[in-house]
């Protein structure tokens, strides 16, 4: 009986092994990013960091084929705009679906759930054609405007609003003469804040990491970070230390976000899994 509830050392060994496997590629990325080229092209491969990061990153900055810095700034702009859009549209619609009564509510909510299951690649080619028609090719509009709403965001906010906001609170606000938009601003938004923060973090990271679509519509002249990294790695695949210096710099912002908010992000993901 007691035996069943004790955690055996084997459990820890297995978990530590999993942690090492999870973390090693990051460590390796920093090792290569801080090594000079000849140290990389040797046997055995290097296992400790070096001091060449400055040189390596200077080559990235001097390289105008991939526009790394522009990509970094672009990614920051795109991710921020998309995050604000998804959180705003998600909280608004989530509030409406959870707490307001209107004709067609259930049918529309069902439509949102269904759209979450449809693979995104299905509409890729026509959407690419639309971007040409609009003159949005190679413009940040193409990777921003179509993505400022998300079915997942609406659904997540709806689930949270249903249980986090009591109907009495909203009715009381109405009796006090609040308009619906005031209720949203003064009652709903503050109550949704924890979940909205998680949605914002998830959206930011997801947008930051997007690859296929930006790769389809952007060029190295005006890339996002990921597109810039890809072109850099294709063109300079023999200059590993340069490519890895760029990759490391592009990964650090997300590692920082995760370091500060990892607990909330994981909490949000695990909660979402049980509810849906």
């Amino acid at each position, binding site marked *: 009986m007691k035996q069943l509830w004790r955690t055996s050392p084997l459990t820890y060994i297995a*978990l530590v092994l999993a942690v090492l496997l999870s973390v090693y590629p990051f460590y390796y990325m920093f090792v290569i990013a801080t090594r000079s080229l000849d140290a990389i092209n040797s046997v055995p*491969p290097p296992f400790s960091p070096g001091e060449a990061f400055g040189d390596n990153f200077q080559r990235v900055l001097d390289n105008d084929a991939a526009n790394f810095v522009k990509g970094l700034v672009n990614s920051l702009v795109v991710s921020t705009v998309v995050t604000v859009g998804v959180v705003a*549209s998600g909280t608004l619609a989530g509030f409406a679906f959870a707490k307001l009564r209107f004709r067609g509510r259930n049918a529309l909510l069902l439509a949102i759930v269904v759209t979450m299951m449809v693979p995104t690649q299905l*509409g890729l080619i026509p959407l690419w054609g639309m971007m040409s028609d609009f003159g949005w090719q190679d413009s940040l509009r193409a990777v921003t405007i179509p993505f400022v709403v998300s079915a997942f965001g609406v659904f997540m906010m709806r689930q949270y609003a249903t249980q986090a906001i009591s109907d009495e609170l909203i009715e009381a606000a109405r009796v006090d003469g609040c308009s619906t938009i005031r209720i949203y601003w003064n009652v709903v938004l503050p109550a949704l804040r924890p979940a909205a923060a998680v949605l914002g973090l998830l959206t930011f990271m997801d947008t930051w990491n997007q690859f296929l679509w930006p790769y389809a519509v952007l060029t190295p002249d005006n890339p996002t970070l990921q597109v810039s990294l890809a072109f850099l790695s294709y063109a300079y695949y023999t200059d590993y230390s340069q490519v890895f210096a760029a990759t490391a710099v592009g990964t650090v912002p997300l590692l920082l976000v995760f370091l500060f908010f990892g607990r909330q992000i994981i909490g949000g*993901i695990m909660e979402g899994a049980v509810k849906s």
Partner: protein
Amino acid sequence: MSLATPARPKHVAPPDPPRRRQSRTVRLARLDTKLSPYLYVAPFFILFGVFGLYPMIRTGWMSLHDWDLIGEHTFIGFDNYTALLGDEYFWNATVNTLGMFVVATVPQLILALFLANLLNRTRLRGRTFFRMAIFVPNITSVAAVGIVFAMLFQRDFGVVNWLLSGLGVDAIDWDAQRWSSWTAIALMVDWRWTGYNALILLAGMQAIPKDLYEAAAIDGAGQWRQFFRITLPMLTPTFVFVVILSTIGGLQLFTEPLVFGNGNMRGGTQREFQTLAMYMFEKGINSLNTAGYGAAIAFALFLMIAVVAVINFALVRRTVK
């Protein structure tokens, strides 16, 4: 709803002008409750309609045409689909997609289940640390993962070949053969997703009532017996969810093989690891005048995902029950 008309008797004051004003606010309030919900859901539906739904429908329409994305198009019925059936590159990409999906997903889910079970131990120390550490691969971009793994699997100076040489294995040219490229790509996918899936399964495990385990323990059921008799059956809904998500994501595999093969949309010199998504990109976007054919590939991929998702759903339900 009834509260939207706050015309309580005591408010209906005798003087005339205030009363008119009030009836206007009442009308406004009513308009507000009627229209607001639609205004609030409108941004999502308008943008999704234009940039999500419309392109998806248009894919179906396009696939019935000989279509140039920046030029002419003519209706050709199901010709694209008949051509697809006789296209060896299409079947090659189908085999690669399904093959890599199986090679990546089966070990990944078993490992995730195992990890989740370890993390579910009641007296585990450092649980937040472990959870965060196994999740951290998921926050990296696929492009970065592709770059790092391509180097790990590099033929002459890569860490993997160096480790294998310690076991007496000759250097493997990982992107030159089908089995080796599939293995490397599957490992990339698994590295990024195993921890994520483990956390989702862990969430499902924690929703299982504790007294079931206590009762089983009193009856003398050991840890493994409890796992197979209680955890697995009770976990079915979460497991189905994970399997469906993995199916939708796994069959759309694109970035890992692309970056692994240095940006070659054909996925290796002999198309050893070209997936359906890559083939769709090659036909629909890299060469604009075959966009109709690309759309047919997109539609075929969509059907395949639907079929595989349904099969997986049925399989998981049957085996677990």
